[in-house]
């Protein structure tokens, strides 16, 4: 009996502690983020952090977030997850329990998001993530995770639609070759492409799963040379993108349409390193500075791009843009919830319908953004041009690849 009373007392003390939790001391709302500042994702992780920082800076400079008639500044507590999932999960735990952050922003990559989501879910902390696109994140029934980006199976679907339009022959005669890495994320991309290929009734002539420790693509590319497919789809992170353009050139392989992912992170546009090897490749992107979307905080996509460029000295890659968008979405949801209560903000997030420079954002039941399409950009002489979908295209797709 005594013990029971003691338990109740402790509980109410704890509750009191939680209510007066130091998350809102002074006039800031603490957001937590574990991003990869070192390790193999450090390049993209740094883009993510810069995107978050710019988002916070602009939200604060525009008056911050108003809750119950009081305005708060946003502040982010960062940790470096060293590109390791286990570290990411423990840092999320630490952010929530020790640093007592109110809400979370996502890490970089699907793998890290997969590691962190169960932790935020357990503690009921809403997380807006911007860099985890794997389809497998959205069939776990997570209630507190929201993603501003398009999911992985959408990455190259547009390329399939384009070959259907451009090939100039019935879909049943169009041949497609797939060279896609054997990891969950890339295989999601493959599943999406296959869905569309089957829907059009095209024929898959090569379906190679590239090994994770990819070092040579000769056998796959000679197959491409032999079978001359209309469309070659390559996805194997940056190493797959870099290796395939290098080896296609060395083996004298050419296809009418080459669609890839990770062109930007492989720096295929860097003419000093790749020359014109990757010219006319189609690259999947979440966002581009030239898309015609706009929102309240940054205005148009182009405007965001120039602000980013002025601040950090380079054109924002989509990893940075979507990270900024996550901050905007979080600020919007807190404002609409008019409360710092975790569940109220979660519900506000679920009801989000927001125009941003990054595109329209509206979440499905599973938490992924269903309002923004993936775009396809063509790389010509070191520059990317949006060529699909038609409503955001800035240039005509060059087909066949010269």
């Amino acid at each position: 009996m005594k013990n029971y009373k003691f338990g109740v007392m402790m509980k109410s003390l704890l509750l009191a502690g939680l209510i007066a939790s130091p998350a809102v001391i002074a006039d800031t709302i603490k957001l937590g983020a574990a991003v990869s500042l070192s390790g193999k994702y450090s390049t993209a992780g740094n883009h993510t952090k810069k995107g978050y920082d710019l988002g916070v800076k602009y939200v604060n400079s525009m008056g911050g977030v108003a809750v119950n008639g009081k305005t708060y500044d946003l502040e982010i507590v960062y940790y470096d997850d060293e590109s390791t999932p286990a570290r990411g999960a423990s840092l999320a735990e630490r952010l929530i329990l020790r640093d007592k952050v109110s809400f979370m922003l996502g890490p970089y990559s699907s793998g890290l998001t997969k590691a962190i989501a169960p932790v935020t879910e357990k503690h009921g902390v809403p997380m807006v993530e911007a860099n985890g696109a794997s389809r497998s994140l959205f069939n776990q029934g997570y209630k507190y995770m929201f993603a501003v980006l398009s999911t992985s199976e959408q990455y190259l679907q547009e390329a399939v639609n384009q070959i259907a339009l451009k090939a100039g022959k019935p879909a049943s005669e169009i041949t497609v070759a797939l060279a896609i890495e054997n990891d969950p994320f890339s295989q999601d991309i493959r599943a999406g492409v296959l869905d569309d290929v089957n829907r059009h009734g095209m024929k898959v002539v090569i379906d190679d799963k590239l090994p994770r420790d990819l070092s040579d693509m000769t056998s796959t590319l000679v197959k491409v040379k032999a079978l001359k497919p209309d469309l070659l789809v390559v996805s194997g992170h940056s190493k797959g993108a870099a290796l395939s353009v290098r080896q296609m050139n060395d083996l004298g392989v050419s296809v009418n349409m080459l669609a890839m992912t990770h062109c930007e992170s492989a720096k295929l546009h860097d003419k000093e390193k790749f020359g014109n090897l990757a010219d006319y490749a189609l690259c999947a992107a979440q966002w581009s500075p030239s898309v015609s979307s706009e929102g309240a905080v940054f205005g148009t996509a182009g405007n965001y791009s120039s602000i980013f460029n002025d601040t950090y000295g380079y054109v924002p890659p989509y990893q940075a843009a979507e990270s900024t968008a996550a901050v905007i979405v979080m600020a919007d949801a807190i404002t609409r919830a008019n409360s710092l209560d975790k569940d109220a903000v979660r519900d506000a997030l679920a009801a989000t319908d927001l125009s941003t420079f990054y595109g329209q954002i509206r979440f499905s039941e599973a938490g992924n953004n269903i309002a923004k399409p993936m775009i396809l950009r063509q790389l010509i002489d070191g520059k990317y041009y949006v060529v699909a979908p038609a409503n955001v295209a800035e240039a005509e797709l060059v087909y066949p690849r010269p």
Partner: protein
Amino acid sequence: MITYLNILIDSPEFLAQLVINGLLVGAIFALIAYGLALIWGVMNIINFAQGEMVIFGGYLTYTLFYQFGIHPILSIPIVTVLLFVFGLLVYKAVIFRLLGEKDIFITILATFGLAILMQQLMQAIFGPDVVTANPELGMMHIFDGKVSISNIQLISFFIAAAVAIALFIIMKYSRMGQAIRATAQNPRAARILGIDIEKVYANTFAINAALCGIGGSLVVMVWTIHPFVGLVYTFRSFMIVILAGLGNFVGIIFAGMGISSLENVTGFVIGAEFQAAVIFCLLVIILVTRSIMARKKRQYIQ
């Protein structure tokens, strides 16, 4: 699978393409594998940091190319010297402690630790990006233009061959080469005859590092590298050595070129996801047959 096989039968030029390509790049692997066999045979150390030393050599070539404007092929002598010195340093820091270690796992653990350290350091120094040093030498067409060979692969092949011949001569005729071979045969007898074994070991390890450096320069010119791809080269050279047998110089060359060709052909016919599996199965079959044959002669495989 049958379709792909039919392609090879109907159009042998694709088979030629796969095999020639495998033979050319196989020479690079043979070079790296020879280094592994050398320190394995002489010092009884299996170096699991072999691939990382290759990648390190590749990064040096890349850096010399983009930072100092030195053509990747011309950077090879510089990288060779740098890696030789690096090999000596690693020997003085880590490797000499492993000499005479009865338990092979200690040496594997130590060199594996070295591999992880090197991966992280390379990542810190050179960044996590995928890099390549394209010498842009164009390509060559043979068999009526049906088979394309990039000139850099051809040049790599000849460089690897030249290094192999040079190595053969050094091992056979130079004082150090003779000392290394004597130490490999019987360290105690070599010491009694006045050979400075410490020096031999240090030089052997440094020669291996230099070979890795040359291999790495060729790898970054032919393919792409990033800090975490070293293990591929370690395993590949390990496999070549197992297949050829320790101390079998000619065997290593054939195994290196054979495995690469076979891998290309199996990748073509069965699919890229199975090519490593097929090679490993083949390795098991060869080892089992060899063990059965050895048993008949009342021997065993070491």
